[in-house]
């Protein structure tokens, strides 16, 4: 775990610092009247006149205190910027994840159990389409249909203008209304992947000996499927849960940009355009940590679900 943490910081740092030119060049050049003296001063402030390993150690020392420095753009602490953006991103992705699992498990199970049926074929086609369609395209289509054509859902943002004057229930409903489209777009993409995994996993389990034995013993089919097979088929899905964290975070860039949601993804995107290197580095580190965290949770869940692991096998 620790070497991976260190590795993450090294890569994040290297991505930005191995490039020709210094980040402060970019800070200076947008304001033509900052003269050379100021440039030198900036270099000193950011320690860019020191050797690269010294810079890295200084950075990591601060990072240990969760201090990512300040944004080049508005001079606010990077951590503050990230922590105000992170909750929305997490909320959207957790909701999407819930919907994905709610749907993909039944779809996967059913198409595995009734392999080759019309249901299997149609869901397969649907799932493949969902997987192949670019999320920004789906987003645009949904937005123009539900938002503009029908005018029944908000087009962008996460809350109405008079949000703070609403009652609590009204507030919750308002946020949910705003999240319907973004969460749907994420779910459509995710649904495809997970239900596919579920189907494969289920197929694998069904062909196992113990399921056959159960069947042979004359147990009712639904007991066989839902008691014996499903539990085991779900195990690999838990791992997938952990593994899908990075792709969900990746997807948030697009979703948040299209729907104007002020989350992590958009912060990253904006920072790329303004070359706000401190924020970019922090974004990389934080998102990688989140992934690790996701994997950790998945591991724990797996251990809980699979008795073999508990015996230290």
């Amino acid at each position: 775990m620790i070497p991976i943490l260190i590795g993450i910081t090294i890569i994040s740092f290297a991505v930005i610092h191995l490039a020709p030119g210094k980040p402060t060049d970019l800070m200076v050049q947008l304001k033509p009247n900052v003269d050379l003296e100021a440039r030198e001063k900036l270099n000193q402030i950011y320690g860019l006149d020191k050797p690269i390993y010294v810079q890295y150690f200084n950075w990591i020392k601060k990072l240990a205190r969760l201090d990512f420095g300040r944004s080049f753009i508005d001079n606010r602490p990077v951590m503050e910027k990230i922590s105000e953006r992170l909750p929305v991103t997490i909320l959207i992705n957790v909701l999407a994840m819930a919907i994905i699992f709610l749907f993909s498990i039944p779809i996967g199970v059913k198409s595995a159990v009734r392999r080759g049926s019309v249901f299997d074929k149609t869901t397969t086609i649907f799932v493949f389409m969902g997987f192949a369609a670019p999320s920004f395209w789906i987003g645009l289509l949904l937005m123009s249909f539900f938002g503009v054509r029908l005018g029944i859902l908000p087009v962008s943002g996460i809350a109405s203008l008079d949000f703070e004057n609403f009652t609590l229930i009204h507030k919750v409903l308002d946020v949910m209304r705003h999240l319907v489209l973004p969460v749907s777009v994420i779910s459509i993409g995710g649904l495809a992947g997970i239900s596919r995994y579920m189907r494969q996993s289920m197929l694998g389990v069904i062909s196992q000996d113990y399921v056959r034995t159960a069947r042979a013993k004359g147990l009712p089919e639904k007991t066989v499927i839902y008691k014996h097979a499903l539990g085991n088929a779900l195990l690999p899905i838990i791992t997938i849960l952990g593994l899908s964290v990075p792709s969900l975070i990746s997807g948030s860039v697009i979703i948040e940009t299209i729907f104007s949601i002020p989350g992590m993804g958009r912060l990253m995107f904006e920072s790329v355009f303004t070359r706000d290197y401190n924020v970019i580095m922090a974004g990389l580190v934080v998102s990688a940590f989140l992934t690790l965290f996701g994997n950790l949770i998945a591991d724990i869940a797996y251990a809980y679900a699979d008795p073999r692991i508990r015996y230290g096998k």
Partner: protein
Amino acid sequence: MMKQIFRNNQAVFGAGIILLLILVAVFAPKIAKYDPAFINIQSALLGPSLEHPLGTDSLGRDLFSRMIYASRIALLIGFIAMGLALGVGVIFGSLAGYFGGKTDSIIMRFADIMLCFPRFFLILAVIAVVGPNIFNVMVIIGLTGWMGMARLIRAEILSLKTRDYVSASRALGASHFFIITKHLIPNGIGPVLVSFVFGVAGAILTEAALSFLGLGVQPPNPSWGNILMEGKAVLGVGWWVIIFPGLAILITVLAFNLLGEGLRDALNPRVER
């Protein structure tokens, strides 16, 4: 039996579309009626017609021609980026699998670390530093996509290297290089190729997303992603500028995924018995 054909059909269907796409890309100048960059303001935003089968964009450029040329970019980026990823993945994976020990743990740890980063974030960050253009996008997508392949080939090699013919070869004094390239990689490449096909689909999607955000292929070079970006600006008056490039991406990615599935099933008879 029927199922088998259905499955195979999928793969054949995918391969057929891919072949068609490759032909379109190769013969783009023959197929496209217009110069994809030719601006004619008088004919801006015309709907589909005989003259312009897919309509025109906000600068009066023929959308069909642009889409045709964009297929070149999509395939180019898909294949070259994943080719790069394949190369890196196979080299790292076979080294790790064959030599084991320190080499293995260093390489696989590195892969684990890379896998921790949300890929799109990593790509964005690198683009912020090196700037967006076709070449950079290709290289970056490639260099962030090798980890899965490295894992696969390593696993294959781990099981292959204990086989008798490998031991025999070693006993006969064959070099490591010879054993890896002649015995191990050819025998273990199957799953990696499946992953390659899926990877191409992913790379095409990633490029489209980057171009859609204005961080990929730069105009006036057409790419499905940046045509869609332009389409977004005419939402409401030019549905064709949005619908067609999206469909093109969908169909292409679908084709690669179908082919990938088919290949995987062919290699994985256990599940699909």
